[in-house]
């Protein structure tokens, strides 16, 4: 009897082990279980972009029942890590949305992305800003194209609460001096002038880039990134940081500027507690699902008096799409890429407040209140890609973010900030060569 009990327990344990091992082997390596034969990984988790990609996938799946697409989206802050991990493994998605620049270089260098040069040359006429540095630097590595832009991001946009300005007798600013004057007036009334939350580093860094584009120009900034002449300690880069520092000293930013994140700064603006918010056109995308409870005005950050390059803008192909070489179905993935960047699909995205990179989409179906801003972006002559994404992560996402955070906290001077950036760039990329 005892022997029988022992053998019974043995059999049960063996069965359990088999079940556990079977459980480990089941599934399809973590892919969505909705039965698709292709997968897309993106950071389109909410707002217009999430609604748009779902619409594109639904219509694709309807037309291609044998090659269905499924998607997995991850929030912005964790997406970079998740996408890099996915790309380093043996089971990458068939289509990857990412943010270009240094990621493109890393992926292309490792042979992880399909060369799209042929497709791009045949189809680039359908994209706005196709030949601008803001787009080409985002997707090109050693002369070959590895991704295509989904959006034409306008980064240096100043959004304002039109009602709040009107209630306080302030006209929408046309110059930087107008912004400062409005800020001082609002400050005196106890209203936070500019919503900014720099916990994650990039919102503050982007404000610095806005001034960099105007004071240094896009060409000089790109040369500094490439270590071809200019250094980050050159006067205009320090002056750009000093402009932000001056706003901080005037008390234009909220008390939580260092500890609040992007969502915090958006909440501050949308709850009517701040008059302005300086961020990118992606903010508009959230209006599709959660429109602000007041009329929002939007224009490029007004030019600084005496700026050498007042019309230079931080604008680039923000969301880019590539085809991983490890994908299971590259031919179909290429068809999907072609489909999602078609004018018909781009119109759907534009209707959802997305700054589509496809020419004519916003004009045809974009909401009226974004068309002017979009036209300024699409027709910009000098565009700068986001510097934090262009620089190696050790420089752009460590020192740039942390030192600028320190500047916003009043612990670092503009000179110390640019000195730290230059030191990191030298250590990572080498000295700047004339």
């Amino acid at each position: 009897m005892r022997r029988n009990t022992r053998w019974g327990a043995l059999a049960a344990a063996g069965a359990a082990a088999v079940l556990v091992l079977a459980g480990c082997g089941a599934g399809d390596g973590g892919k969505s279980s909705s039965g698709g034969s292709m997968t897309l990984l993106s950071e389109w988790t909410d707002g217009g972009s999430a609604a748009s990609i779902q619409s594109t996938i639904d219509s694709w799946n309807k037309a291609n029942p044998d090659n269905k697409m499924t998607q997995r989206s991850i929030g912005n802050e964790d997406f970079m890590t998740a996408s890099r991990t996915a790309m380093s493994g043996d089971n990458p998605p068939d289509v990857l949305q990412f943010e270009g620049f240094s990621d493109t270089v890393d992926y292309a260098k490792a042979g992880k992305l399909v060369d799209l040069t042929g497709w791009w040359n045949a189809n680039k006429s359908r994209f706005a800003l196709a030949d601008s540095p803001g787009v080409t630097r985002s997707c090109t590595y050693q002369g070959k194209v590895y991704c295509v832009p989904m959006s034409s991001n306008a980064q240096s946009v100043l959004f304002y609460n039109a009602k709040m300005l009107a209630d306080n007798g302030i006209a929408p600013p046309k110059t930087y001096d107008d912004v400062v004057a409005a800020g001082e007036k609002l400050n005196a009334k106890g209203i936070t002038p500019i919503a900014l939350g720099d916990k994650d580093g990039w919102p503050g860094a982007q404000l610095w880039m806005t001034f960099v584009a105007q004071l240094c120009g896009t060409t000089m900034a790109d040369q500094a990134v490439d270590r071809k002449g200019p250094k980050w300690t050159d006067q205009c880069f320090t002056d750009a940081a000093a402009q932000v520092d001056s706003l901080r000293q005037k008390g234009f930013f909220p008390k939580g500027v260092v500890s609040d994140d992007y969502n915090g700064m958006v909440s501050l603006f949308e709850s009517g507690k701040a008059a302005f918010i300086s961020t990118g056109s992606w903010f508009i995308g959230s209006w599709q699902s959660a429109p602000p409870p007041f009329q929002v005005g939007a224009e490029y950050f007004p030019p600084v008096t005496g700026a050498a390059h007042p019309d230079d803008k931080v604008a680039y192909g923000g969301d880019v799409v590539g085809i991983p070489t490890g994908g299971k179905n590259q031919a179909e993935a290429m068809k999907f890429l072609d489909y999602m960047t078609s004018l018909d699909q781009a119109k759907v995205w534009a209707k959802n407040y997305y700054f589509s990179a496809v020419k004519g989409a916003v004009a045809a179906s974009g909401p009226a209140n974004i068309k002017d801003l979009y036209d300024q972006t699409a027709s910009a002559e000098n565009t700068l890609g986001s510097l934090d994404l262009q620089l190696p992560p050790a420089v752009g996402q460590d020192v740039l973010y942390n030192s600028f955070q320190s500047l916003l906290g009043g612990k670092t001077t503009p000179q110390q900030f640019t000195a730290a950036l230059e030191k990191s760039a030298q250590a990572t990329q080498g000295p700047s060569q004339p």
Partner: protein
Amino acid sequence: MATLTTEASAAAHGSPRVGRRRRKWPALIPFLGPALGFYLMFLIIPLAGTIFLSLTDWNGFDFGKIDFVGVTNYTALAHDPVFKSALWHTLIFVAVAVVLKTVGALAASLAINERLPLATLFRGVYVMPTVISMVVIGVVFNLALSPTLGLINPFLDAIGLGHYAGTWLGDPNKALPIIILLDVWQNFGIYMLIYISALVAIPEDLGEAARVDGASRWQEIRRVTIPMLRSTTGIVMLLAGIDSLKVFTTVYVMTRGGPDHATEVLSTWGYDQAFTQNDVGYGSAIMVVLLAIAFVFAFVWLRFFRKVGE
């Protein structure tokens, strides 16, 4: 002679007890196999992999381009100011959190053991944070502490303590202490439960003997109860120490190591190096240092308590 023959025969064939043990092994494999398999697969192999990667230069993308660089990553640590401050923050975190968790858990368990009114309620209240996800706690406290959208500053204003309002997590001098306190608040409940279990196991007659000898309640706790909890305290401090060494989620969710690395600890800096800056070798070296500290801490702590016990 007969006896000798029997012993020689037993030695030749192994003792009956050893033989029984050997015969048991095949039967034990199905029971131990899955657990050992998981242990090997998810602990030993990744551990060996991390140690190997710490000796390489690898960007995390291309397995064909893993360059062996020896101890270069470890020598680079000595010149990394962020690593040094992360190491310092980690040690401060462990020292303060271990003391606060242990003292808090001991005090709470002694109070609950007194069977005061609402003791059961408070036991649940203290344990409750332990079962809540740290991500949820981090997000909630992040919002509550926000100087612009939070509740703490308006509350301080409302009760006339507005001059204590601050930027909290935005202040490099306050951010780390706040995170430590939050970690203590979340985790001390589980150590309190360990103490309560140990208190129940202390024989009643020891306390009675002390009382018969005229000891006050406080003297009884100090002279009888706390010494009887010595080994439990050792375990609690060891577990709390290892728990604090591993801290990641609290820091990552609340500050991401900021402002300007003011709350950076070894785990967040290693993660940042490996997964944000694509320097997997260097990130692995940081994690190996953390592992070594944990091993040394556990070894020294166990030796110390064994000695004290003896």
